[in-house]
């Protein structure tokens, strides 16, 4: 009985927090199927200086699919930008998988001269605000001739030190005796990385890539600074700001832009749950 009560309590707390974080989604969904007039009447006090206080309805009085149609059918640039984002994300994640994962492995499992220094540099670079680095990064990218191409946002993203930093900890946590055992079995260094490191560090890898993915989907500063050709802008640039008259449209576009990420969360969570389940079996 007490167990059930405790469980109920835990769930209740979690659900309260989930409501707190999920609130905006409800707002987005409601706004996406709400007519402009209705939105205006609720948000008028904030958006156009009417008297009173803003209110919101979870479900519109007069639902309409107009905004959905507008985004999906009448906004070709939306998909164009989506495609750019897809390219950027693919490039960055691929780069991360091929380069950052081994780098994190090398940094965490091997002792070599300069290892500490490299690690420090990685942390430092990760912490520098983008505004500060922007000009100098631009100069480098311009020097290589990458400014105004998608590479200008892909390459710095692919070499982001952030994911190395995250994966480092997970690789470092793998017990040395497992490595030793593999070594005794005659595994080479590369095999050990692929057969021991990657499977055991996969939660770390998945977490790092997931966070990197989010980064790609929300980048705004980098494209503005390094890309001039508006046909190369990613989806995150579609609505960096919301007009008063187009609130409904903007909310709907945001919601649609959000969908891939939500799907990925679900897929990713399956993966993580498997990890949890696997450790449960070990018990």
């Amino acid at each position, binding site marked *: 009985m007490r167990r059930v009560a405790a469980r109920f309590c835990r769930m209740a707390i979690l659900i309260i927090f989930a409501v707190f974080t*999920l609130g905006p989604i409800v707002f987005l969904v409601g706004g996406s199927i709400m007519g402009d007039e209705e939105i205006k009447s609720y948000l008028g006090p904030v958006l156009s200086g009417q008297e009173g206080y803003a209110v919101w309805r979870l479900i519109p009085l007069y639902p309409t699919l107009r905004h959905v149609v507008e985004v999906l059918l009448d906004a070709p640039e939306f998909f164009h930008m989506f495609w750019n984002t897809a390219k950027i994300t693919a490039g960055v994640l691929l780069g991360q998988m091929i380069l950052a994962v081994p780098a994190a492995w090398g940094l965490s499992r091997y002792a070599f001269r300069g290892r500490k220094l490299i690690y420090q540099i990685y942390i430092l670079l990760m912490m520098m605000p983008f505004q500060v680095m922007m000009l100098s990064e631009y100069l480098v990218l311009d020097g290589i001739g990458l400014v105004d191409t998608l590479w200008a946002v892909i390459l710095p993203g692919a070499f982001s030190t952030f994911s190395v*930093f995250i994966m480092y900890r997970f690789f470092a946590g793998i017990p040395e005796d497992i490595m030793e055992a593999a070594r005794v079995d005659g595994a080479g260094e590369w095999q050990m990385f692929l057969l021991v490191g990657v499977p055991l560090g996969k939660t770390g890898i998945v977490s790092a890539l997931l966070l990197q993915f989010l980064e790609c989907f929300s980048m705004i500063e980098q494209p503005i600074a390094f890309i001039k050709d508006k046909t190369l802008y990613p989806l995150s640039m579609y609505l960096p700001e919301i007009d008063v008259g187009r609130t409904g449209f903007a909310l709907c576009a945001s919601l649609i832009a959000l969908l891939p990420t939500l799907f990925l969360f679900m897929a990713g969570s399956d993966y993580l749950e498997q990890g949890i389940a696997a450790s449960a079996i070990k018990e």
Partner: protein
Amino acid sequence: MKKKHTGILFVLPHFIGVCIFLFLPFLDVVRRSVFRAAGSFSGLENFKIVLGNDAFRLAAGNTLRFTLVCLPLLLVISLFLAVLIYGTGKTAGALKNAFLVPLAIPAACVVLIWRLLFHVHGMVNGVVTALGGTAVDWMNTGSAFYVLVGSYIWKNLGYVVVLWMAAMDAIPGTVYEAARIDGAGRAASFFYITLPCIRPAAFTIVVVSFLNSFRVFREAYLVAGNYPHDSIYLLQHVFNNWFMSLSVDKMAAGAVLLAIVICTAVSVMQRMWENQ
């Protein structure tokens, strides 16, 4: 820890890229910090100017305060949630996704929601007045700071929960099993097993959370502009405004100072973690 060459070979390809795309620019920033914007060498003059600059001092203080308030709050809340989810098992896994959602919501929407909530005529004030209180201009008084703190936690909660959970995931189940056989309760196994086991990961998480405290800037800017209320005028505002007025020399010097502080803080933390 063997085979020195192999280690370097794993790291090298990535490191070369990092050098080109990130480290080289950083060195350029360092170089700029000792030159005037016009191009002549100025030694430490820029640093002197920056340290004596009221705007910079205000912003540095605010940033420090923000970090000191946010970090502990975020770490504690997220660890609490992570433990809850972990203890509830598979069914609660889905809830973890809910915590990640804020990260994916476009900044423009977040800003809109902020305005709706914290505007003088916003929903929060609607509730406050309905309960008999007086309306507060949340974004233009000292409360702006707490709004910013709240939004930072709201946004980064999922991030950190995921990291805590991944760390807990790495603890072998057998350890808990053994503890249970020894008669340890939930609380005991949390304090004697979970906490010590995730301590190495805590370092990562602290650094990442610290890093993300720099990223509330875009929201802060979109809601409150370049010159927000005193209490949320952060280092990024200064850096940004300096760049807007082409004072790259000052910006670089400020950045180098920030880098020094970060490096010191991180190595101190590292030392603490290693010594314990």
